[in-house]
């Protein structure tokens, strides 16, 4: 049987391994009378559950865990995601009983240590970004964006400036920006980029007017470049009466170097799971604290931690936009981010960003002869965007390059984003990789560039050495197979 060949992955799903009547545990006899479930409360008739022994279940999930790809196993240069190493000390602190075994319903007086940690995290995030008023509760970056936009809306309404309905968003933005703006009730207007990959400042000035509620900007931009005219940009929006929002996804490039508040931003969110080394990419949950300047503090979501007479309390800001999550956010994640920041210290903050920037530019300079740089070889910040348009001209796409990287144990970089770069490959090495790892990656990328010229079919059929080879993503999207069926009725053909 093939399942006893060590090199073969036993592929059957949990449901297909099920044997009727097999069980892991023996339930005790009920000590209350049996009663049928009321028919009207049943969602469906056919709840099928797998029946397996405990050992079979352990083997199944252990196998799946061995197929995992993570930053703990391999290089993971996924642009805009900051897949840096997550120090294990973070987890150790989060699992201390005082952190892990408290309950959100406990009275504030019994969790003063936890509240103090949250308070100090608010303070230090405010110091790092120059936006001193912070709410930690949003549960992800996109929710942090949404919270920030609700603050902007609340502010304009409070000032009876209700005609401000427009959110200006660059064409290079993360897709979450227009999505969050629409969710918050704004009309999205796109701001073009110029030929250097910057915001087209002249076009922005024309678009900014009395209907502008907020301009959302990622800094450095999604093409990994710093906006040289950032002060002019924030001034123009303020002169039009609007607020400036910073998408904090790329904060890893700015720590200790500059502060969003000093550059004129009014609101930001910070992805703790990117910049501050808490797990993500399936290891979540995330956390997306929202940060604002002092005059917007009253509009923050509920709750924030305040210090009153030497005691820490959860409070509701005066004109709060309301609650965004049950309780007060992903506490375990907050502990991890706090641990990381305290461990690195203020000196360390600056070093994080300096090394992230040096690593990205090292990769850029070593690969600029092999892949195109869309904006003429400007120095990058913490990530570098290549274009595989030269490879595309010989029939090899960015997707093929990315798939071939998998054969070399490298996680594919972000592809086809930002949308303004054709055949984009966005590489973010982060500060936690060694020169040896970067050199290994550079060598592989050069080899792939040669293969594109010499034997493109190797790229087009990649990956070759994985349990699943090239997936048919188009069919999967056109005819999604979302639910297991007995006898594999709707199962797609095995490769």
């Amino acid at each position, binding site marked *: 049987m093939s399942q006893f060949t060590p090199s073969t992955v036993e592929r059957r799903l949990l449901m297909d391994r099920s044997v009727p009547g097999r069980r892991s545990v023996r339930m005790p006899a009920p000590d209350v009378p049996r009663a049928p479930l009321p028919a009207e409360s049943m969602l469906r008739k056919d709840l099928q559950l797998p029946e397996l022994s405990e050992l079979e279940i352990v083997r199944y999930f252990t196998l799946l865990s061995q197929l995992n790809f993570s930053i703990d196993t391999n290089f993971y240069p996924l642009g805009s995601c900051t897949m840096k190493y997550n120090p294990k000390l973070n987890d150790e602190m989060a699992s201390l009983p005082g952190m892990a075994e408290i309950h959100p319903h406990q009275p504030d007086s019994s969790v003063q240590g936890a509240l103090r940690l949250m308070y100090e995290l608010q303070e230090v995030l405010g110091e790092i970004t120059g936006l001193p008023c912070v709410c930690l509760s949003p549960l992800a970056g996109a929710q942090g964006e949404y919270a920030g936009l609700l603050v902007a809306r609340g502010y304009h309404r409070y000032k009876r400036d209700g005609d401000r309905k427009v959110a200006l968003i660059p064409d290079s933005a993360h897709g979450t920006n227009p999505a969050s703006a629409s969710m918050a009730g704004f009309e999205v207007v796109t701001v073009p980029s110029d030929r250097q990959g910057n915001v087209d400042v002249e076009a922005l000035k024309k678009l900014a007017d009395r209907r502008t509620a907020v301009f959302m900007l990622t800094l450095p931009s999604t093409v990994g470049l710093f906006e040289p005219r950032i002060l002019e940009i924030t001034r123009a929006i303020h002169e039009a009466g609007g607020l400036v929002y910073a998408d904090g996804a790329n904060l890893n490039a700015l720590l200790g170097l500059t502060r969003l508040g000093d550059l004129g931003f009014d609101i930001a969110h910070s992805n703790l799971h990117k910049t501050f080394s808490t797990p993500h990419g399936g290891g979540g949950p995330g956390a997306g604290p929202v940060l604002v300047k002092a005059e917007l503090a009253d509009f923050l979501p509920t709750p924030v931690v305040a210090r009153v007479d030497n005691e820490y309390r959860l409070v509701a800001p005066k004109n709060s936009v309301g609650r965004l999550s049950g309780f007060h956010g992903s506490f375990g994640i907050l502990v991890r981010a706090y641990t990381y920041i305290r461990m690195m210290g203020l000196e360390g903050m600056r070093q994080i960003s300096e090394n992230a920037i040096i690593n990205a530019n090292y990769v850029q300079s070593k690969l600029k002869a092999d892949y195109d740089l869309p904006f003429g070889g400007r120095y990058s910040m913490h990530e570098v965007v290549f274009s595989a*348009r030269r490879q595309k001209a010989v029939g090899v796409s960015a*997707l093929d390059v990315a798939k071939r990287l998998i054969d070399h144990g490298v996680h594919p970089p972000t592809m*086809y984003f930002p949308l*303004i770069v*054709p055949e984009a490959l966005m590489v973010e090495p982060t500060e936690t990789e060694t020169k040896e790892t970067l050199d290994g990656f550079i060598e592989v990328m050069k080899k792939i560039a040669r293969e594109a010229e010499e034997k493109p079919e190797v790229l087009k059929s990649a990956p070759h050495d994985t349990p699943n080879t090239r997936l048919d*993503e*188009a069919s999967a*999207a*056109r005819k999604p197979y979302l639910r297991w069926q007995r006898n594999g009725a709707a199962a797609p053909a095995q490769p």
Partner: protein
Amino acid sequence: MNAKNAMASNNPRELKYSAEHEWTRLQGETATIGITHFAQDSLGDIVYLSLPAVGASVKQFQKMGEVESVKAVNDIYSPVSGKVVERNENALKSPEIINKEPFGNGWLVKVQLSDPSEMGKLLDAASYDKLTAGGH
């Protein structure tokens, strides 16, 4: 082989083009509309398509639908104004036809023109070749 030149010469001479990569074939006062080879190639495998209903009004250079590929979701802009008289049900059901035959069976809608003079605002094949020759 130079793929760029091969691609450019794929743009049929008799069609008119928009800068947003839609093509228009005029027959009498009815325009057949689709997306170009360049557009489908940039998008990659198309997995979902939404189009206006028959009878709906469309406006020149305004959004009339969406096309979703494995890479991205893009808006489709109508290159002309008028009323939708027919739409390609086959492309809605099997959008891969747009990848295979963008200028043929992968057409999207037919529109009864309300202002034929608008055709003057569209590009001829030579201008569209030039627009798409340098990448995007």
